[in-house]
């Protein structure tokens, strides 16, 4: 099925794509059919810079297990980071 389930959010950071590094401003997170991964459904992440055009995108298609592991690893790292190292983060 096409789940259509999509979260979109503004982000601040950089990513490396086909043409090298660029500043990313938007992200889409969705669970739907992948383009390349050999599963019926994957957790897909697009880091995007719409101002630079559609090709300014770093894409990921992760198995559900890999997506959860990655999310946990990110949160584990972020929770262990001393507050004084986190600059300009209002969260």
């Amino acid at each position, binding site marked *: *099925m096409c789940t259509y389930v999509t979260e979109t959010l503004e982000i601040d950071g950089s990513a490396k794509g086909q043409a090298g590094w660029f500043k990313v401003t938007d992200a889409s997170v969705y669970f739907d059919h992948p383009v390349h991964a050999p599963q*019926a459904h994957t957790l897909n992440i697009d880091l995007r810079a719409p101002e630079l055009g559609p090709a300014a995108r770093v894409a990921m298609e992760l198995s559900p297990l890999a997506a959860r592991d990655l999310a946990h690893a990110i949160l584990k790292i972020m929770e262990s980071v001393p507050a004084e190292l986190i600059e300009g983060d209002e969260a």
Partner: protein
Amino acid sequence: MYDTILAETITITGANGDAIEAYSARPLDSAPRGGVVVIHHMPGYDRATKEITRRFAELGLNAVCPNLYSREAPGADPDDAAATARANGGVPDGRLVGDVDGAATYLRSLQNSNGKVGTIGYCSGGRQSFLAAASLPIQAAVVCYGAFIIGTPPEGFPLKVTSLEPMIGQLSCPVLGLFGADDTFPPPADVEYLGNAIEKAGKVKEFHIYEGAGHAFFATDRPSYRPEAANDGWAKIAAFYGAHLS
């Protein structure tokens, strides 16, 4: 038998008079024939959809697939264009109708056109095939596992789609619907409801729900491919267009 086919990227006039990209595949035989507007799925104007477009030409029909993401992402790779369109909430219904209208006008302008045009769409394109048939003078519409023809997406979905139920009475042609019993978007209960609603409106429908198949069973490049359902589905499509576009 003369079976030469010409497949090429062209420019057609879409909604609001916009020039949009499209993929045309047509037999060069001069005998009159119908045409099909192929509406691509949400992942975009991709190789698989172009293969489908060429298959219609091989079946003897003129076919054209408009790139529904031409405006957001001109010249972009299909997956990048689809990502942009998804983030923007999909294709607005009014624009889709205008683009399909432009594609139908192109087909009817071909020298070997008999004036009849059908639509076919997969996934989100299935809903759009139905939308086009309820908005434009079309002779045959095929819906392949289109979700949200009735009902609306759950809260929080970024898709800007509304129920087409109020438009059922405006259908201009018979509808062939091909669905998977294991699909959840749309679930078989919604398919049954839609079929009943079409008949109640005095319109013609032919629905088939394939056991052992889910969503995207026609997609040969995905694990959802179900050869038995797909082969039978292609036969049903050929017969349906044969009956209504000849």
